[in-house]
């Protein structure tokens, strides 16, 4: 299989995630788009692991680390979103401007 197949797929998934992060207003949707971007990174790691035929499977090990970090990130992110919703009755990120000069 050409190496470009997974690389182009990962680039597409990452760009879709970038679009989602910038275009969405709802904080939960932004978290979903971030998950898409993290998955694109994982596809790259696995593809290069297979391409380089690494004896230590470094790409796969670090894909597992990225998955663990993504789980931690979404847990903290949702806790913050719930806190904001409880205090301000909204999860629209353009209305949360507490830290804006």
């Amino acid at each position, binding site marked *: 299989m050409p190496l470009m197949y997974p690389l182009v797929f990962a680039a597409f998934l990452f760009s879709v995630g970038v679009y989602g992060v910038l275009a969405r207003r709802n904080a939960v949707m932004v978290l979903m788009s971030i998950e898409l971007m993290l998955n694109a990174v994982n596809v790259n790691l696995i593809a290069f692991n297979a391409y380089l035929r690494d004896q230590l499977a470094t790409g796969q090990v670090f894909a597992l680390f990225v998955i*663990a970090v993504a789980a931690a990130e979404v847990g903290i992110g949702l806790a913050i979103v719930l806190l904001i919703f409880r205090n301000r009755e909204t999860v629209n990120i353009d209305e949360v401007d507490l830290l804006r000069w």
Partner: protein
Amino acid sequence: MTGQEVAFLVLAVIGGLAGLLVVTSRNVVHAALYLVVALASVAGIYLLLAAPFVAFVQVIIYVGAIVVLLLFGIMLTRAPVGRRVLDNTLRARVGAFVVGGGVFVMLTVFLADAFGSERIATQAATATAALGESLFRNYVLPFEAVSVLLLAALIGAIVLARRD
């Protein structure tokens, strides 16, 4: 074209379309369900790239845990429906499309320049035993760091979400 390539292309088209629907859907719950499809097709791609353990971890953690967590987040924040409440203004969306499309074109051009003729050799799937050996022999320090990170995230999430 081999069967592996055909399977990859089918999975990539399904995953790409599902990803597009995640960021364009008008309904938050539908977006979360499309995210399940996208993550599951990525798991299939891991299988095709000779990484079965990571594929099953993807199914268990992403599809099983993270999407459920996101659905709980949607339920607890009274999910609104509709283009206007979910998306930014048209101007911001056009800007986001330009940035996303630019990232895609730039990455594709540069990657084609660097790896355009390279091929992934057909190979046996990485045994879970070999992956575990590598993880606990060579990468045990980053593994412990990730464990501490998960613990810190757990405590942080409890502290943030606690009502006191």
